[in-house]
């Protein structure tokens, strides 16, 4: 622990940003559940909407909770996000590619 804790200022006033973030993240989750359980739309449509909601959730988490835009010397979160995108590409793209075997086997 460095003795320079005053570098990070304490947040002043009521944390409205966090409350809004909590509200939005709960809302996005609730919509996803409602779509899957209570509506009878075609699965492809439901999945597409849930993916879009998921991206929204990601942005809420990054901007409302994770101090994504703050940094006081180098913005290490930027390369981390790029590497994250690479991993997402691997796991999503790779899985789709690998799991298409079902259509060949079946």
């Amino acid at each position, binding site marked *: 622990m460095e*003795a320079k804790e005053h570098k990070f200022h304490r947040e002043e006033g009521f944390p409205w940003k966090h409350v809004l973030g909590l509200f939005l993240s709960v809302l996005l989750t609730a919509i996803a559940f409602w779509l899957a359980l209570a509506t009878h739309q075609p699965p492809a449509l439901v999945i597409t909407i849930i993916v879009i909601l998921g991206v929204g959730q990601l942005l809420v988490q990054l901007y409302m909770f994770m101090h994504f835009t703050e940094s006081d010397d180098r913005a290490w979160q930027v390369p981390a996000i790029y590497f994250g995108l690479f991993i997402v590409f691997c796991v999503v793209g790779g899985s789709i590619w*690998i799991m298409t075997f079902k259509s060949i086997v079946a």
Partner: protein
Amino acid sequence: MHGVVNWAVHFFMLDEGPLIWLSDFLIICASLGIVAVLTKFRLWKWLWDEWLTTVDHKKIGIMYMIAAILMLFRGGTDGLLMRAQLAWPNMHFLSADHYDQIFTTHGTIMILFMAMPAIIGFFNVAVPLQIGCRDVAFPYLNAISFWLFFFAAMLFNLSFVVGGSPDGGWTSYPPYVENQFDPGPGENYYLVALSITGIGTIATGINFLVTILRMRAPGMTFMRMPMFTWSVFVTSVIILFAFPVLAVALALLLIDRDFGSHFFTVNGGGAPMQYVNLFWFWGHPEVYIVILPIFGLMSEVISTFSHKRIFGYSAMVVSMVAIAILSFVTWVHHFFTMGAGPGVNSFFGVSTMAIAIPTGVKVFNWIFTMHKGRLEFTTAMLWSLGVIPNFLIGGLTGVMLAVPPADYQYHNSYFLIAHFHYTLIGGTVFGVFSGLYYWWPKMFGVLLNEKLGRWHFWTFMVGFNICFFPQFFLGFMGMTRRMYTYPAGYGWGVVNLISTIGAFLMGVAFIIFVYNILWSARYGERDTTGDPWDGRTLEWATTSPAPHYNFAIIPTVKGRDAWWLMKQNGESINGPKGVPFRPIHMPNNSGRPFIMSALFFILGAGFVFQWWILAIVGFVGVLICMAQRSFEYDDSHYIPVEEIEQTEAAAGRL
């Protein structure tokens, strides 16, 4: 009344025979013994104040190492039980059910509850000292990581005597592990315990990533970091991106089992192979998580005991980064036989073979580091050198397995078993022992005995090779993984017997190791200098064990092998004489990580047995702990200058 008794007998598995009764007896004896010792010597307050509430990375590191050694004992006992069962054809020492449970717990414990805490223990023991800082970036979170791991390990081990162990293999593939085929709490234990320890591990990844990015001593640029710190940095990145995938796979399977969804079932639109795909997206990087830090610490050990700087520092760094990236694009080689088609299998076969290149670079660099060095064959050095031939065999057989058409022959045979034990024991376990002998004085202020250490090393080295080398041939002879017995007449009997003898030799080596710890604690050479090996990196610049605040004055780093340079130039770790000390800001201890993790245990038990009230109690407790933390403003203190002066004077550094 009768019903309750019946339920209890089944629940506590008293109808399962003498192995369970013996375990019950031993667990009760051990628990009573611990309570008695703590009470007799009035150690409860000491235990709570010094250990259970600590946020000090050095103490957390020690607790990780103790837990890892205990789990090595548990996992090793499982291994010996299996080898005893397989020693000869048609043995009936274990039933098929018990054998299934034991190979599952063996694999799971060895990877998640032995290798992981050993690795993370070394992170804690060495990294903050090596980069010249006073603790990790988030000490409180570090305590949470440890206690989550600890309670998850307890929950998992409890399965042996309460409700039944998981029996789906350490990979826990559906559809077999779905409720339909494998009812009961066993698999739930696996899913819940791994999820809980996974949260802790992700937190550790974040913690060390931030620590290394933000808390290096002034002057320590990236290319001046010790090799071990580099390996921890790379490993933390892998942890951060691989473990969430496991968390998702486990959660989906748990939802299948607890709430009847159909993610991985055969009917209802589920895709069992999707679990396999997700599992190995974590599982392959995981094997690099447990080997890269070993590569890092081997580099330290070999460089220290060759009394030379590491050969090819930049090549070492580049090869580790390359391994990290490649580790995310090879996972299909674990299930080539799924039949994803020639395109997919060829791609992943080639990407797997590509990993051999950076790994080879590292092996050559270690050899060239020794070239023309002043070699000193201490026990730590022997263990590190032992990795090279053993891991080479593991790696080369890995390249053989990476060829998809050939893999169809080797897949799930004893060839595979031999291969991954050569990488995980020949690499990780040998490396962990190397690290233990190397950093033991830094952790406890005592050196382990070298003579006993040699006995430990050679017994283990010989036993390990006798145990696992014959298994390559068993694989070629057609013996498959996870078979609990086999008929006579295949010619497997003698080979298996040899393998079992080797396994018991490894057990003997473990006993020598434990004896060495006990002997050294009482009679071992005390490390009074803090630098018993003539070390090169900053952890050897301070006392053994390091003072609570690590460094009275944060050192300024002028090059690679910072402490070596300081010694060459005759400098003190506290800088030029007469620089005044300033009060040091340190985090407060807290009991909340322990309590919160205990509540996670209750939450987990609720999910295991589907006792939802228990789960809700645990969950609400966890939420209360988190809320309390949010309103905790007084969470740190200053160490006054007088105390620092006293400590530094006692260490002879004034």
